[in-house]
């Protein structure tokens, strides 16, 4: 290798080094951007899901609170309650009501739910169909433990 070749190689090397110096920032920026995007996008997606789910629960539970409060103020009988329930649920968000007889009180109970976690239970006197009360414990986060032996299936009369 003669001196001329060595000189040319050194020029090429200095040009390559110069390019590397300019490009290395880009490489770090790119790595940093990827790390930032991965972490923030994951937080965005998880938090967005939570916020959306909670907003949805608020919207659905509003329906249950409305039925419970409207019924407490205005319903006297199961027919009144059924009417309030029907009028309130224009968007058909409620699940099919679960009707049972509470063996302890003898009252007919109607469980109105938007899902398995959130529901209200209205109780009616079987003799005169009078509304005896609405239980909102599930809406208040009080877990209600149902005794499977305490209820029996029975048809609900809405008239």
């Amino acid at each position, binding site marked *: 290798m003669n001196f001329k070749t060595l000189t040319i190689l050194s020029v090429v090397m200095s040009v390559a080094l110069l390019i590397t110096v300019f490009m290395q920032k880009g490489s770090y920026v790119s790595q940093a951007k990827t790390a930032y995007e991965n972490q923030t996008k994951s937080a965005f997606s998880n938090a967005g899901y939570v*916020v959306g789910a909670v907003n949805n629960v608020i*919207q659905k539970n509003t329906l249950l609170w409305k039925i419970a409060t409207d019924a407490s103020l205005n319903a006297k009988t199961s027919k009144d309650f059924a009417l309030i329930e029907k009028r309130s649920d224009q968007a058909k968000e409620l699940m099919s009501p679960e009707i049972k007889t509470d063996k302890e009180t003898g009252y007919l109970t109607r469980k109105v739910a938007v899902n398995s976690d959130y529901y209200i239970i209205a109780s009616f006197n079987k003799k005169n169909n009078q509304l005896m009360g609405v239980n909102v414990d599930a809406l208040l986060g009080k877990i209600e433990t149902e005794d499977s032996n305490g209820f029996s299936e029975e048809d609900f009369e809405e008239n």
Partner: protein
Amino acid sequence: MDKMKLIFTANVVVIIVLIVVMFSLKGKYRDQAQLVVKETTEAYIAEVNKTLYAQGQFVDEWNMVWELVFESANKKSLNPKTLESMISAIESNYLKNPKNLEKLEKWGLKELKMRVEAEANLRNVYLGDDKVVVFDFAGDKLKSINYDALIAYSPSEKFKINEPAPFNFNSKIEGAK
């Protein structure tokens, strides 16, 4: 040949300088990248948590307001005094639940209170700045409870998670040298 020697020598010097520059910049860029990613990510997560906490606080307050409305609807007689005691009872019951205490600690609060303001015969209940329930009393008797605004209240516009800002490598970093 002398000219060639000069070019070669100059190049060797340039190469050495470039190597030094490259390594010193490498360290600087690495430190800056780590710092920017750490701080911008933490800032975004703090913003997200702020929204989540605000929503959590809202949900509990919203539930307390509904509980108040529901209980009021079930009271045979209600006057401003009994309403006040109901509010106090709901607020103190809230504090009896250990899960709620954990939440309050996370939110940096000691208690959660409903915002109720008296205006002549009215008792107005607010969620944030929005009046959501109005208890109307005629003397010592309750005339009506208007909770239409509470039914219509939609928090979906209030609690939203903003997308992360585009990455900026040169964003101003607190404490950066």
